[in-house]
């Protein structure tokens, strides 16, 4: 790699101050995305601000009232293996499990994952479906932003200069919700998702009381299918309903072409996988 300098602050506020002072610099945490950009010459930095030496920012905590709080420096594998996540938000554990490989999951952080704004990723889809909020910190304070509003486009977020993602919070899902995340790859198990579907259901016997459905990795940010959610309310998840969901999703999603499939193909894929995710969710999705 070309040479660069590295600042290693010991607090988020110091890191934020450093970023404000050096507007050209970027923050680096796990490094699994940024180092590749540097190696490929896509990004040639003079200075990076290393967040990895900041203590205490990898904690995962649960509060019955406020839900889960994941420190930004928790690794994807930390999230996946956290007993709290597995107990309260199994879908998030699954969406983290299917990211890349064990080595990357051990390096990459949840904060870096959302801050990178990469649409070809699994956790953001699940987190949007779960109503996650990102905690943004500067030297002078912090603000909360729903992840859905934080993600603006491909590699584009609402981060302001000097701002850092310090935590990701997920509200408690409430009783009776089942959830499922379903990743689909077109080439290898090791591929990024061609489509990822996150869904939550509250069932009343066989009838849907409430549903949430988010389709990711086909649009620059995860797409919440609110009309489909509304349609599902009060229906049973029979073959006819699922087929209609598939059609509705396919009609509403506007996928982008990439090497994993054409827009037309992904449109169909999104519909099929939405059906399958709902089916999985209703039959296998852990209820609590």
């Amino acid at each position, binding site marked *: *790699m*070309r*040479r660069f300098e590295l600042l290693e602050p010991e607090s988020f506020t110091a890191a934020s101050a450093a970023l404000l002072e050096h507007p050209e610099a970027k923050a680096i945490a796990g490094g699994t995305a940024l180092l*590749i950009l540097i*190696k*490929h010459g896509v990004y*040639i930095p003079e200075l990076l601000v290393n967040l990895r030496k900041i203590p205490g920012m990898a904690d995962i905590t649960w509060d019955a009232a406020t839900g889960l709080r994941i420190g930004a420096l928790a690794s994807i594998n930390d999230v996946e293996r956290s007993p709290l996540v597995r107990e309260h938000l199994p879908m998030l554990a699954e969406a983290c499990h299917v990211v890349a490989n064990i080595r990357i999951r051990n390096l990459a952080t949840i904060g870096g994952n959302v801050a990178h704004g990469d649409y070809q990723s699994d956790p953001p889809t699940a987190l949007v479906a779960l109503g996650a909020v990102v905690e943004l910190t500067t030297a002078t304070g912090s603000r909360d932003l729903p992840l859905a509003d934080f993600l603006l486009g491909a590699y584009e977020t609402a981060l302001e200069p000097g701002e850092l993602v310090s935590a990701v919070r997920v509200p408690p899902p409430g009783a009776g919700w089942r959830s499922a995340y379903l990743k*689909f790859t*077109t*080439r*290898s*198990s*090791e*591929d*990024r998702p061609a489509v990822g579907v996150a869904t939550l259901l509250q069932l009343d016997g066989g009838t849907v009381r409430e549903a949430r459905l988010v389709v990711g990795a086909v649009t620059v940010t995860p797409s919440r299918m609110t009309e489909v959610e509304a349609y599902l309310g009060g229906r049973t998840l029979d073959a006819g309903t699922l087929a209609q969901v598939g059609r509705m999703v396919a009609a509403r999603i506007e996928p982008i072409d990439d*090497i994993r*499939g*054409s827009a037309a*193909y992904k449109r*169909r*894929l999104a519909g*099929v*996988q939405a059906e399958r995710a709902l089916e999985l969710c209703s039959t296998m999705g852990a209820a609590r």
Partner: protein
Amino acid sequence: MTSIGIDAPRVDGPAKVTGQATYTADIVLPGMLHAKVLRSTLPHARLVRIDVSAAERELGVITLTRDDLAGIDPYYGAVLKDQPVVAIDRVLFAGDVVAVVAAESRDIAEEALDLIEVEYEALPSVGDPFAAQAPGAPILHAERNTPEVQFLDMKSVHFQADSNVCSIYHVAQGDFEAGYAAADHKFDDVYTVPTIQHGHMEPHASTAYWEPGGKLVVHTATQNPSVIRTQLAEMFSLPESMVRVIVPYLGGGYGAKTYPKLEPIVAVLSRKAKRPVSLVLTREEVFMTAVRHAASVRIRTGINNDGQIVARKVEATYDTGAYADIGPRTCKNGGYASGGPYRIEHQDLTSYCVYTNRPPSGAFRGFGVPQVCWPYESQMDDMARRLGVDPVALRRQNLIHEGDTFVTGDKLIAIGLDKCLEEVASAIGWKGIESTRPMPSDKPGFVRGIGIAVMIKSTMTPSNSAASVRLNSDGSATLLTSSVEMGQGPHTALAQIVAETIGLPLNRVTITFPDTDFTPYDQSTSSSRTIFSMGHAAQKAGLQIRDQLLEIAAKQLEASPGDLQIEEGIIAVKGSPDRSLTIPQAFRAHFGTPVGSLFGAFDFQTTGGLRPEDGKGKASAFWFLSAAGAEVEVDTRTGKIRVIKAVTVVDTGKTINPRQCWLQNEGSMLTALGSALQEEMVFDNGQPVNSSFLDYLMPSMEDYPDEFQSMLVETPHPEGPFGAKGMGEAALGPVAPAIGNAVSNALGGIRLRDLPLRPERVLDAIDAAAASGAAASGAAASGAAGAGNGGEAAR
């Protein structure tokens, strides 16, 4: 036999599981500089200006450009010397070598690249062989060097000038037009395969330095050290003895490390730098250094109602990229094998090797044959479906047999293909025509199917392998060989051959790494030729030692040499084990004291070659024969295919080490599975789009089939050591068509003709079949299956 046909433990095991095995990039020499390559950003351009002064001035690096080529022949190439060390007047593909820098560290070298100024004048480019042959296409190599005479088999290849067709090979028998016209059924289809990667985990790496006496020393990850020595000697007008090529372990090759790759660059740059220079490619650069030929194959076949194939015409067009490399041979060997392992009266086979503005294509495991096996074995199943017969039976009816004359004129010997076919059918659970119908899956929306395919392939012929065996007075032996250990296991298998031949315990035989100062000539560690050719040479060399030992012992034991045996290092009179000598005792008897060496040496040249006028003669010293079977599950709603089970059967002649053969077959299967389902280099306006493992996905452990079986049949070859033939790449060819046939059977006859079988393509084919009213799932009767068949009606 005690050492042949056993799962001898690999001698490289302890080094490899402990991380102690040395690969080229591990070699660090005093004062060594690290090189980085500046690569063309355009697929075709004139190099107007190149300025390295800022890089030299600001970072103190040493550079290599077209201005540093005085006094040498800057061109190299396996067949045609058409590739310069660095671009001279033009760049011919995005990724072509424009300049190289050497610095104290890789990061400084990398930064220096940013300081080099290059001015290009963009030229129109050609992205595929058909565009390259269109009127008005830019000619990439207007001036050609004469083909190398080093390769006797190249005489039958017709080199073209004044076009982008680099070479053509043609062979025929009978009268295709007449035979085709008279046939009851005619099939005329076009099949394609894309450019793919070898995927060796070790990127290319070479290190060179010059000794004060003017000798060039190169440590390199190559499959053919002898060829590298020759090419470098020619480049610098040196005697071959003044070029030393040393090869440690290779982290895979699969053809990508044949012929010069980085060696000319480090040789020229280290000459200028007067220090050792190391160049290790990044993975992204590997994508620009060697690829497998994309191909488009039109195949016309006439078959009669009784199942007899009567006529076949194949026109196979290979994309050889910007430089010839070994492409003309790849295309020739693919060309004469393109009719398949069948008795067909009328054949007309042509292959075209065409230059394009793409990375150079070269040798790739399977060597031109997977590109044509995919068409002929896919069409075979379509023909069976049309005729309403069992495709296994149809193959059985038409297969070549022992003693047949191949289209090249070769008299076929050691042909166990019928056994391969029967074994594969049995292992995959083939039940006759019933197996051409979809099988249910327990998952809704999924269907299953099974399919099989067979293949014939040649080996590089003629070719030379020389071996030297040295027996030490303590009864240990060393085989000096230039065969490369790249994972396929020659250090173990050749030791087995030498041990068995002389009669030594296996652990007393050691194999050298190639070092052209000491190890004799070997044409190449490729073409699955090492066991057959080097094994033959080693066996003959070993026999010379055995004969010497027997002669010495005969005097001592007062017996005739014919009455003696050597087992486990003991020379004894047969039937009288008490009348025996150990090897140290034999040395003492011969030399007066247990010192000295006994030598054996043999240079084995296979004979053959093809005539320029008709492309016939003897194409191959032996023939690879293999079969593959696959069971697939197709997700009919997404088009995604999963291979549930794969089976390969290879005729080894005689199996030296069954375990290693299993793993070789597993490797062939896995690479072919990748090429069938997921691998494809994508270009956009001449720019590679996915030249990274992030975007080019090879099969993982989860993609690996639930079940794999490797089976070996043995039809001994008279020239092979103990009857052994080559086998390393034999299993690759039939795997993709076996998968394609299984998919077709799962989908009631839908045929996909373009690899890879991406989910999107499969879904589109299902849609198209549904739209045309053909059955896409369920019970399409074999007679009704026109689905997706571009056969006689469509054209």
